[in-house]
């Protein structure tokens, strides 16, 4: 049995799928940082090869559909348990039956792919709203968050479109990286807690005080419904939403 290990990039995962596709002794596929040796399988480290990755891309776009390609990418971003292996099963299933198999919402693999896809998009919709910037001097704005799924690549076009005239640093604390936007273009780079601390030194943004007041004032106590509130705005996100935190 083989455990395929890749370097955490999407190209790496595509390369791993490329080699694992014809291997009927695949035990698992995972990031080399997550790998834990076990007795049942041998590790197979995969070296990322952009040309192999592109061959999968081309083939999926050509023979299947861009919807299928999008699903594969979303599986990668989901970082949910077994998402890499699920991607391989999905890929095999689609090549076996054609892209039409995506209609079979009752098929266990298709169902799971749809579930993962939905989870990523639900959080994406949340994050579009829940992300909070603070001004750190000039027209520079900093936000931090720790989403369950890797959201920065999805948020990037949205943020660039919306805040095209403000410099931004959006820091994913869980994945230690940040989106930097300088009014011209953006990139995602490694970013540590120390980097953030240095950046935030001496910065203070008073607007949050006003927003907190607003958040209190707009509530209707006669209609109190904390359960519904928690359903829509899960507690794990609130740490980064200052209006829900005491002064």
């Amino acid at each position, binding site marked *: 049995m083989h455990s395929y290990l890749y370097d955490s990039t999407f190209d790496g995962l595509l390369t791993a799928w490329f080699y694992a596709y014809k291997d009927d002794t695949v035990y698992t596929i995972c990031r080399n940082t997550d790998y834990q040796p076990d007795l049942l399988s041998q590790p197979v480290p995969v070296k990322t090869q952009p040309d192999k990755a592109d061959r999968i891309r081309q083939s999926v776009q050509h023979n299947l559909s861009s919807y299928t390609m999008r699903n594969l990418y979303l599986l990668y971003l989901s970082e949910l348990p077994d998402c890499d292996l699920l991607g391989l099963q999905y890929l095999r299933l689609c090549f076996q039956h054609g892209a039409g198999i995506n209609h*079979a919402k009752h098929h266990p693999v298709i169902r799971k792919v749809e579930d993962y896809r939905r989870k990523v998009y639900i959080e994406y919709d949340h994050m579009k709203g829940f992300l909070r910037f603070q001004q750190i001097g000039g027209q520079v704005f900093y936000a931090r968050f720790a989403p369950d799924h890797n959201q920065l690549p999805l948020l990037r076009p949205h943020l660039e479109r919306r805040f095209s005239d403000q410099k931004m640093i959006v820091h994913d604390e869980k994945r230690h990286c940040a989106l930097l936007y300088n009014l011209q273009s953006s990139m995602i780079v490694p970013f540590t807690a120390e980097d953030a601390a240095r950046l935030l030194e001496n910065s203070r943004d008073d607007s949050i005080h006003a927003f907190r007041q607003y958040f209190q004032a707009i509530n209707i106590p006669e209609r109190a419904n904390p359960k519904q509130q928690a359903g829509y705005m899960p507690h794990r996100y609130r740490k980064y939403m200052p209006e829900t935190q005491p002064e």
Partner: protein
Amino acid sequence: MNLTDKLTILADAAKYDVSCSSSGSTRQGPKGAIGSAAKSGVCHSYTADGRCISLLKILMTNNCIYDCAYCLNRRTNDTPRAMFSVDEIVNLTMDFYRRNYIEGLFLSSAIIGSPDYTMELLVQAVEKLRREKNFHGYIHLKAIPGASPVLIQRAGLVADRLSINMELPSEKSLNLLAPEKKKQNLLLPMHQIQQGIVQHREERALSRKAPAFVPAGQTTQMIVGASGESDLQILRLSSALYQKFSMKRVYFSAYIPINEDSRLPQIARPPMLRENRLYQADWLMRFYGFDAAELLDETNPNFDPDYDPKIIWAVRHPEQFPVEINTAPYQQLIRVPGLGIRCARRIISARRTARLDFEDLMRMHVSLKRAQYFITCKGKYYRIQNPQPDVILRALKPEARSPYEQLSLFPDWQTAAPQPGIEVLGDKAFFPKKASAPASSQTDLLPVF
């Protein structure tokens, strides 16, 4: 008074306006501008009452020359008053928007000086945001009843959405509780906005450069439970509003007793369950192809507190059931209690590849709790054969409710409304077409009212 104190007063006074939706408009500024709006809207936070915060919802002032019985801001109430300047509104919006607190602005106001004076200031604030600040976020502006058509026209060119509140579900109640607001002052601007939307849409079809006018459409709101109308009357009025004025949305707000007034009913708590039933019915009419007359009639003019309107409709129409999952058309599937739009789409998609049984349904996360009484798979019921209405109603009887009526504004099957971007396959084809009604003559704006 400092800015935060004003904000506290003027947000508090605006909170009874239900709408906070930022949907219906797609906007995108050029690079170097700020703001965008997405068709489906975004929620930025949720208050302790479980409502979405999408927009900065404020009154420009709560100083009012009118004296509507149900309103906190009425002239005769002794309550702290405040007023924002145009610049304060503009700056607050920009500050909040840049920090991603909000999707845009929902600006309303009590009537200060005169309707025209108030409206002029509101329009100035929005024009300034759009023209000076290059702001392309979402703006919902309240049109002041009695404001001149010129101002409404200016407002429509800069706002995404305009609304004028119907306030009460009949002319009689309006005369009783809001005597200074005349029916014609509410309906005429609604009519003008609708005409403007149609006209500008035609112009835009000819030239992409023609300006947009209220691209996210108009909405309205009425208070439920402050006056004696039945659910049937309310539903009839709201469907007339949808048809006559092409409303995007009619909101209901459960009457909250704030003022002591002999013209108002004595109630301890807002009738939230009733409000909820009306929303369910509204949803059925807008997305599920139901007609007001199918849900209520003269013999049953009010909704059943124990069951949602779809179940009641279903048990009254045994001839429509059972619905066979493998062959029923979409319009029939969505009428099954327990099946929402998302479920129906999944079923339609999956049955292209195989004949489905109940296990397949469960695998697709279709809940059978309610649906099992109304559907068959391959000709067979799930458990019970030919369930009778009384059996169904007994099985689905809700547990005793807590006195606090903690209700979700949008119960599960409502949140399954079409959400662009989530399910992709074949989405468009399944959207029910919305009928648009022809414009009416001005004298007969709303006969049911």
